[in-house]
């Protein structure tokens, strides 16, 4: 048996020939190097332009109103909510990797968790802009918070939007803290290696006086575990609550109990796709093949396949329930998806989210960077289309044919969407330039010579 086990031993999580020092050198140099890669400047320039466009869009919305978007009656929610759900979903992979995989002691997570967590933070920031800006009077959006006020008004706790406020803000807070706490030892490493006094001071301030003492490590481990414990339910809860925005509604296509699990699976599906979309170029540009190995890619491919199948099951159940419910409106909802004016969007969704990810059954495909990138892009698009289908197709034709309508996104819908993508890339570029994109101390734990410290995350 043991012989056979060696045969199917998965590829190593770190390239051969790495020492503790070489790992630190390699990752820390990405930050401390004086030579900023030209590609980085290019990314900042392009994404920065889109951040500017985002700013203009937000100001326009603020001063002139959400009428700039294509929303109308009956389609009261458009790109804003589609993108909100999309971004929140993307964020999920980060939390899953950092929390659940930590608790499950999946060692392969170490080299991708930092970037994935950063991705979560930026994705949640992008997501958070939408609910705020989509309100008719964003300057009063703080009324969604339970603040004492002279009107004696309290929130309506029956509204899923209020649950959303709590779910998303909790999620953002916990993710941020988790990400930051996880970075503290590495920030100390950067402080120690920095030559410029100002850089040294900056990292010194950020690392909160980390000295690497055993007591520090002890507390760090406890804190990580606690935060992971806090985050783990969030992976399930946030998108469950987001799905309630729809599931608690009465509109056919919304009013369904399959949504919570199906949204969570979809979020992980989308999140892993986005991790791959970001990591594959990063891995190539920064020559990180030793840290983000084929085994990482394989695993991520498998997760995509698994969650993709859950999502496919969700679609199937939606169709089944439309028929089984006996509700004329539910049945029409399905017919309208398949044959209505937005049928291309729905068929593209099935293609992107169900058909194309089946490529991942092949080990060869899972090992191919290009194939993985192709599938991950397809899932990114597919998951966006899924939200489009849920939000727009359900709303545009509901019960009374007299009030049916169409939704056409405007320039401002697109500029806000592209603007948040720009913001995301902008923030991510800043992150890989100024913060350790891979957890140095955790990857050091993977160096075959044995654990550098009495860490728990290294052996399995």
């Amino acid at each position, binding site marked *: 048996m043991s012989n056979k086990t060696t045969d199917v031993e998965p590829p190593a999580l770190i390239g051969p020939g790495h020492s503790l020092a070489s790992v630190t050198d390699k990752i820390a140099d990405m930050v401390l190097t004086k030579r900023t890669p030209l590609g980085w400047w290019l990314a900042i320039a392009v994404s920065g332009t889109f951040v500017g466009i985002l700013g203009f869009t937000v100001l326009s919305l603020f001063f002139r109103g959400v009428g700039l978007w294509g929303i109308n*009656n009956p389609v*009261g929610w458009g790109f804003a909510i589609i993108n909100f759900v999309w971004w929140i979903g993307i964020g999920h992979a980060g939390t899953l990797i950092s929390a659940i995989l930590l608790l499950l002691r999946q060692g392969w997570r170490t080299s991708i968790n930092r970037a994935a967590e950063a991705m979560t933070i930026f994705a949640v920031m992008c997501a958070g802009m939408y609910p705020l800006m989509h309100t*008719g009077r964003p300057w009063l959006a703080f009324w*969604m918070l339970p603040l004492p006020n002279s009107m004696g008004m309290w*929130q309506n706790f029956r*509204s899923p*939007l209020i649950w959303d406020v709590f779910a998303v803000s909790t999620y953002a807070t916990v993710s941020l803290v988790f990400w930051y706490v996880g970075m503290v030892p590495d920030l100390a490493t950067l402080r120690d290696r920095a030559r410029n006094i100002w850089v040294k001071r900056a990292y010194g301030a950020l690392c909160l006086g980390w000295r690497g003492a055993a007591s520090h490590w002890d507390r760090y481990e406890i804190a990580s575990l606690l935060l992971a414990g806090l985050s783990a339910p969030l992976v399930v809860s946030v998108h469950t609550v987001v799905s309630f925005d729809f599931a608690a509604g009465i509109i056919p296509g919304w009013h369904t109990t399959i949504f919570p699990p199906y949204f969570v699976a979809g979020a992980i599906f989308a999140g892993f796709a986005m991790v791959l979309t970001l990591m594959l170029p990063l891995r190539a540009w920064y020559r990180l093949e030793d840290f983000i190995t084929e085994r990482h890619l394989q695993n991520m491919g498998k997760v995509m396949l698994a969650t993709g199948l859950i999502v496919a099951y969700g679609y199937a159940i939606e169709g089944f329930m439309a028929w089984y419910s006996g509700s004329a409106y539910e049945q*029409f909802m399905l017919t309208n998806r398949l044959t209505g004016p937005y049928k291309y969007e729905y068929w593209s969704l099935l293609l992107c989210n169900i058909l194309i990810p089946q490529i991942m059954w092949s080990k060869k495909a899972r090992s191919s960077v290009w194939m993985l990138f192709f599938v991950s892009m397809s899932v990114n698009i597919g998951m966006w289309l899924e939200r489009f289908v849920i939000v727009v197709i359900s709303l545009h034709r509901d019960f*009374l044919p007299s009030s049916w*309508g169409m939704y056409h996104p405007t320039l401002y819908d697109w500029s806000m969407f592209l603007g948040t993508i720009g913001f995301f890339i902008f923030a991510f570029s800043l992150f890989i330039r100024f913060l350790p994109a891979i957890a140095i101390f955790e990857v050091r734990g993977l160096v075959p010579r044995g654990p550098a410290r009495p860490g728990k995350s290294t052996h399995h």
Partner: protein
Amino acid sequence: MSHEAPETTLSSSRPSSPRMWRSLAEFHGQEPFEQKLLREHPKQTQKSFDPPERRDFLKLMGASLALAGVSASCTKQPLEKLVPWAKNPEQLLPGKALFFATSMPWSSGAIGLLVESHMGRPTKCEGNADHPASLGATDVWSQAAVLGLYDPDRSQSILYRGRPATWSSFMDAMKQTMTEQAGKQGSGLRVLSQAVVSPTLAAQLRELLAKYPKAAWHQWQPANRDNARAGAQLAFGQDVELQPRFDKADVVVSLEADFLSSTPGNVRSIREFTSRRKLRGGKADGLNRLYVLEGRPTCTGAAADHRLTLRAGEIEAAARALASKLGVSGAVPAPSGAAFAAWVEAAAKDLSEHKGSALVVAGESQPPAVHAIAHLINEKLESIGRCAQYLPPAEFSGSDNAQSLATLAQDMKDGKVEVLVMLSGNPVYDAPADLEFGVALAKVPLRVHLSQYRDETSELVDWHLNETHFLESWSDARSADGTLGIVQPLIAPLYSGKSAHEVLAVLADKPGVSAYDTLRENAKKLLGEAEFERKWRRAVHDGLFAGSAAAPVSVSGRKLEVPAAPAPIGLEIAFRTDPFLHDGRFANHGWLLEQPRPMTMLSWDNVIQLSPATAEKLDLETSDVVEVAFAGRKLTGPVFVTPGHADDALTLTLGFGRRKAGNMGNGVGYDAYALRTSSALSQGSGATLRKTGETYALATTQEHDKMDTNLPENLREELSPVRVATVDHFRENPHIIKRKEQENTSLYADRNKGEYAWGMVIDLNACTACGACVTACSAENNTPVVGKTEVMRGREMHWLRIDRYFQGDPKNPKIYTQPIPCMQCENAPCETVCPVAATSHSPEGLNDMVYNRCIGTRYCANNCPYKVRRFNFYLYSDYDSETLKYGRNPDVTVRSRGVMEKCTYCVQRINRANLAAKKEDRKIRDGEIRTACQAVCPADAIVFGDIKDPKTAVSKLKAEPQNYALLEELNTRPRTTYLARVTNPNRELES
């Protein structure tokens, strides 16, 4: 975009030379002169909310910041003194509305109104229940009257050749002119009026003619009663008007008479007709039957039990066939193989079985022969004196409009006219195209025009006199049944306008005599000197002279001798007035422009309607722009494929394409008057169409015509939004409509803890979709006008909409309509989802909408299954136009950007009644609260009240077997329910 100073200043006085023009385009007021002029006009609601240029925004922001600095440091507000009322005028209490009676004049007779006034400002018109043309209800135009009064685009001064002038200078000028004319016995003097229903005005005109015997009084109104009166002459040799009594008719045949739509004088006919469509107590007694022959779908056709689509020109043949079946002398039988043979046979049989209670009515657009046939059939059916009464016409002067205007135009061209005084009207825009009225007008040395707007005619005259609105002036007006009503001003003229009475007083050399004095003089003749003051006050209070209705005239039919008109050859072209803009006089009323037309659901445009088959034959689709050529004239306009339209026929709608209507109405649609000639005022044949290859975007508020496309075959009858049964089925089982009672499966406890539980019932069998309720809702609730661009994006703001569905064969479909206000659900899906509790349930069961609290997530609108919530995507309410502010209902918040709004069951009216009841320590009486839509409904189809009390009218209706809730399977438990449509088809025609 540079903003150079406009060349023509219209409101400020500036000495200048006679009007100069640089090009013919400018002379005729085309672009860009018109643009400049537009900028001069005060702003009304923006036509669209298309984004302004970013640069403009920055410029304005910079400028306003700079100016803010200047004004803060260098200027001082002028001193103004506020003087309190030491003694308050009687009855005037801030916050408390007063109602005054007045009348709105129309060509077919005036409608009596009670106008709500707040602190001296009229804000809303209601019907005058004592007035025979109103019976408490109103039409769309009386609802829009307040908007017309406060329209910032109204003419605000007297102009002499385009320059501001004064009333006294006009009087001086006229004095000189009239002295000249006196020498020639007025041979060069012509007065052109619209239809005159005011006896005072008629007396003044006659007095003028007596003084200047060679002068002439002409009249022109593009939608007139010429055909009807000529028809009566043919049939009886008498100038009489048919006053149908639909309440006494069991069977009604309409020969394109659109008496249930938004047409002048419809209020009474709708009330009387629908009084026979209401099923009460589970019984179907007294249900009348309506047969309609028409060329395009109208509200009347939609309400019909049997509707047959025929081209307008073919209706005469059908009418003759009907008459021949009924044995009218001189009628010819139907040609063999006529499409209408079976239909006519069945209708004739039905009519003859209901002698004395059968009625045939003909439409204004049908030729005199058809009217004559209708009259003769009525005589044959022994209906005269029963359900068909003949009365003297409400109009004074019996002259034929078309003839009268043609004579005038000829005289003008021949140079016989030296002075032309036009009292209202806009002949340059709406005269038949072949008369070339504008050209003829140029030959008149002195042209005077009294008008509320600086319209197409005003720009070609010497003297433009700004006219008073009927809410600003004294007058009197006869209604269709002869009752004399008083037109009482609600407010002093906003712009020192003058009424026709005052202008005629000047012509008659009695300057300084006010309309009020003239009116009282005439009233003295009517009321007698004895106790005049008391009687006069009574009349003013009531808004009418009681007992002044005309006595029916006895008539006897002659043999029908008019030869049959030839059937239309080729493509027929028909000109019809718009249901809301009418002949174009309301073209600047934002509410009316925006309100979707009942049958086409179109707003902001007129179209060229044709049938699906004709469209297919000509390879046309809705929105294709075509060039229509008719009698050597051409115009282009967009096609609109209309189910239920006659094949090989076009319908063009009048009233659009105004060049000088005002900011709202300019350039909306195409001008169908360009093709309308004297020989084909209503319809003609031989039009041709040419596809231009262009398309034109139209704004419809309803894109789907069928009500059950989302339902499987087996559930269509059960789940359709409009539930329909025939009277036979209903008699067999009155509960045919009723479905299994829905259990209340809410998790929440029943919350109706209030003293009352408000509810509403809408009787779909009575509603004719005339649209008065929608306009009334806008007027009552300050709903904004959003413009065509926004309507196209699905952002219209009507709190109450009237859905329209077609069913069956597109050639002759069944048409159903359904008004949809907020359902005020007891388990309201909107309430649970609002994160900030901005919409919540009141103890009395209303879904209250708290604008102040709303942050605009729009979740409530998404979750509303009825889609009745409306969102302010932009700042739609006009915060700038000062005059419009006067017209708003002070009891209703003007909503700002970013908040949701919806029907509230007129909660302000509920609260008003609540306060009154509390002060008197009693309960609110049934019927004390009437929602705006209910109050104006000519059909009385909307009933509102307390459903907790089983004795109220609304509770009784809810107990009717045909009462049902829309989408009740969703368990929303709507407080608004519907009474199903129960049709009364003739079994012989049912296939």
